[in-house]
């Protein structure tokens, strides 16, 4: 491996960490509170900085200076490791997310994506399941009945919904014939009947609904936030961590998971970085026809695609928050009913239907 290649990889990792911490952690922290306030006819935080924009900074400073209370009977090692597992898994899932297409800079192909794995979607699923360990272990470590119940619920819920989530995307994989995220995005570029982009949501609408529902359960957002159900379990699996930066890690991991889920939804069902009907090469040649040099044409294209991806992801992040402040929490048995009796049969039916249609066409 040459040094420039290594440098580029490091730069990408730094970029994704920044995206994880700022876009997911900082912006969503503020956005969640602002959006919830607006939906309740309030103004939300608006004292720190203009329009409350510096509120997360104040919160982070507060979290860093708080005393780190460790429960007397906690399993100390697990207590310290569990938040790290959650934050680690949340961040590593970002590694395979492609934010732009591959573009040429100085004869070197580059995309804003750390690793272009041939099993990208499987990698995300594998890492997301590892995140459950963080929740279960932190529930155990606190030695409190509330966090223990939260941890148990978390594991049961993750297992139930991972199944329908995995089955729901099989239709997508059958149609685009690849597990590589970039191939799935490129497979969505042709137009159907000349105007409709062949996005995942168009060819697999049922899979989209199942995947979206399961994504809410996987990220533990309302209406499926049973593992932290504040009305029943204080704060669920992180009850005993309600202080210091350990809590901050759980908090941030939740938003980074939301970012990852939104990104996966955008990639699988909404054409990723694509603008419908326009290919990357067309954008580059458009910028060159405007008089930009090849380097700047690539740069503008990559920024444009980054903007398109972020706009699509931002919509789904908003959807997550929007749903949270609209719907009440599910009861535990309702959650299990919906998962096993509702989503799972539908997902299997969807695979069957997709297969039949593919055989007929």
């Amino acid at each position: 491996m040459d040094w420039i290649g290594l440098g580029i990889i490091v730069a990408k990792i730094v970029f994704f960490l920044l995206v994880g911490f700022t876009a997911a952690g900082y912006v969503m922290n503020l956005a969640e509170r602002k959006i919830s306030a607006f939906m309740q006819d309030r103004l939300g935080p608006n004292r720190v900085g203009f329009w409350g924009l510096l509120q997360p900074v104040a919160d982070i400073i507060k979290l860093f200076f708080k005393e780190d209370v460790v429960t007397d009977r906690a399993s100390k090692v697990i207590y310290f490791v569990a938040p790290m597992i959650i934050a680690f898994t949340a961040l590593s899932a970002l590694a395979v997310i492609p934010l732009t297409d591959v573009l040429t800079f100085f004869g070197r192909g580059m995309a804003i994506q750390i690793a272009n794995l041939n099993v990208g979607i499987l990698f995300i699923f594998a890492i997301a399941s590892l995140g459950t360990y963080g929740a279960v272990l932190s529930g155990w470590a606190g030695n409190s009945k509330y966090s223990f119940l939260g941890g148990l619920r978390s594991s049961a819920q993750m297992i139930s919904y991972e199944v329908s989530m995995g089955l729901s995307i099989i239709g997508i994989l059958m149609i685009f014939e690849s597990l590589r995220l970039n191939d799935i995005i490129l497979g969505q570029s042709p137009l159907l009947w000349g105007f409709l982009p062949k996005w995942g949501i168009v060819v697999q609408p049922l899979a989209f609904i199942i995947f979206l529902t399961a994504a809410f359960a996987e990220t533990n957002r309302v209406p499926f936030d049973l593992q932290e159900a504040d009305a029943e379990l204080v704060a669920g699996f992180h009850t005993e961590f309600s202080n210091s930066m350990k809590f901050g890690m759980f908090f941030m991991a939740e938003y980074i998971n939301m970012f990852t889920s939104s990104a996966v939804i955008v990639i699988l069902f909404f054409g990723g970085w694509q603008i419908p009907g326009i290919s990357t090469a067309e954008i580059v040649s458009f910028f060159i026809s405007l008089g930009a040099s090849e380097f700047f044409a690539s740069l503008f294209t990559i920024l444009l695609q980054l903007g398109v991806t972020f706009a699509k992801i931002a919509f789904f992040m908003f959807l997550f928050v929007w749903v949270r402040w609209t719907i009440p929490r599910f009861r535990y048995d309702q959650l299990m009913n919906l998962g096993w009796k509702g989503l799972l049969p539908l997902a299997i039916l969807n695979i069957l239907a997709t297969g039949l249609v593919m055989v007929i066409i």
Partner: protein
Amino acid sequence: MRLKDKRLNILEYFYIPPILKGMGITLRHFFSRKVTVQYPKVKKEIYPRFRGAHRLEKNEQGREKCVACELCATVCPSKAITIEAAESPDPEVEKYPLRYEINVLRCIFCGFCVEACPKEAIAMTDRYELADYSREALVYNKEMLLK
């Protein structure tokens, strides 16, 4: 009587129409006018009958109207008013309050003292920002009430 659960059809089973309806409502509120009054900067309008901190009224000679009859102290449900009467220097008036104290920490701002007063010597103002640094500062004496 036995109540039967209504059978849900497939759309209702997945809760989709009510969820969409609810999301419509929250989105409408997202864009609607906010009801928050940003208090220290913006203050709500105070109505004429508002019962804030007390004030002792003065007569034409600039003396307190109060004749120390102690009706207000008697009617006060929280025993917040203390009056010490003395002989008035004014030949027209029999008594005047040497000491007139209202303990605002005890006061419940019911306005009974104002209603009870035969001389209209006590009134309530629209002043409601009464916080202070000590308990002593919140026992208003005659000079403070006359201001």
